[in-house]
């Protein structure tokens, strides 16, 4: 399968998730809210959008980890002579690991999105438990920290004069997840949390 086509498997759910966590998501889910009652509430819709986003973020991060392993073997996955060449970015040994522990960025992304998924999924299952506030705040904090990581990775891309489409999808997922967690934190602090 073409690598850009494969990217759509991650990009589309990420964008759907992002739309659902935004206030305009209400109009998107209206046709489904009778059948899927959890989508009828603002809280349920944001939870669902956030779960979709975290799954897509984890999946695309696993894919980048897989690409970096393949490139290290000497293979190609998405190399191109254009500015969009994820092989050149993910395969660059100078930039494809974090500068402190030397862990691959794809692995860090996969682990982070799985943690975010745990935080949001557990909260959605028991939204009135006393630990939910902590989970949501941790999620918001983690995704906010992600902005600094994204800034560093974008800086690397500028250095290389290449853009990694798969990494950008993971960055979008982080932005969407931040919006989702932020909105849930605010909702959790207000009466809107238990509105039916």
């Amino acid at each position, binding site marked *: 399968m073409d690598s850009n086509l494969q990217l759509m498997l991650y990009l589309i759910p990420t964008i759907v998730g992002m739309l659902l966590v935004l206030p305009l998501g209400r109009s998107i889910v209206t046709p489904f809210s009778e059948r899927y009652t959890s989508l009828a509430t603002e809280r349920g819709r944001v939870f669902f959008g956030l779960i979709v986003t975290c799954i897509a973020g*984890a*999946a695309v991060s*696993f894919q980048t*980890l*897989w690409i*970096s*392993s*393949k490139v*290290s*073997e*000497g*293979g*190609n996955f998405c190399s191109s002579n254009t500015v969009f060449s994820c092989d050149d970015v993910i395969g*660059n*040994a*100078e930039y494809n690991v974090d500068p402190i522990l030397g862990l691959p960025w794809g692995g860090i992304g*996969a*682990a982070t999105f*799985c*943690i975010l*998924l*745990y935080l949001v*999924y*557990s909260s959605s*299952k*028991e939204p009135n*438990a006393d*630990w939910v506030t902590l989970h949501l705040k941790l999620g918001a904090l983690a995704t906010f920290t992600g902005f600094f990581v994204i800034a560093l990775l974008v800086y690397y891309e500028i250095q290389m004069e290449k853009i990694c489409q798969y990494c950008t999808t993971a960055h979008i997922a982080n932005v969407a997840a931040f919006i989702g967690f932020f909105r849930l934190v605010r909702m959790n602090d207000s009466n809107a949390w238990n509105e039916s």
Partner: protein
Amino acid sequence: MKYTYDDEADARTTALIRVMALFFVGIMIIAATTSPIATGTKEGERAPALEGKYYNGSGWFDFNLESYWDPLWEEGDITGQWVALEFMDTDCPYCIQSAEDMSANANDFGNQDSGWDGAMVNFLASVAELNIDGHDSSRSEITAFRNKIADSGEDCASIDCGARPGSAHNFPYIDDLDLDNMKKWKVSGTPSYYLIQPDGIIAWSSAENQGESLRDAILTLVPRESAS
């Protein structure tokens, strides 16, 4: 009646188990479908990038080590081209002495008319300017050293660069006067040698084989027609 509702159930444990299962499935798929090779300068690792301008006898051009690699190369394949890389400094006395060995090696293993029946070896030199008194270098000094130009006005370790032992070299000399490549390759001293397989994997390094010469390494590791 069987009592199935679990009062002690906690959404956190259920969620944790499910998410962990997802994570490990992802890791297992990657482990099963790939066999990553670390990038580094030890034997068995993938050679890092080597960048800069190189001199080929007619001018300075952009160098790209990756252009030498053939990812489809298989062990024993005699058609693949190996790379012998030397990190050197034109003012390092031992590098000057070993220039003669490099001339001989390049003539014997990098030349199809030499009678060598093994895989072709491409020779490269990455020229540093070590932070030592008297080790001031320049591109014109690199050119004088490589081409063995007599009376060029360039001194290599206090002697005329054209008076170095060995014949003129015809392989690329890479400008690493800013020491970027040397730092990236974690080279501690000059001369240092690496023999790299056609797929970009380091087969031998002088740092890991003290006492063994580059020539011995080539004769031992590079596949030959007569041996097959």
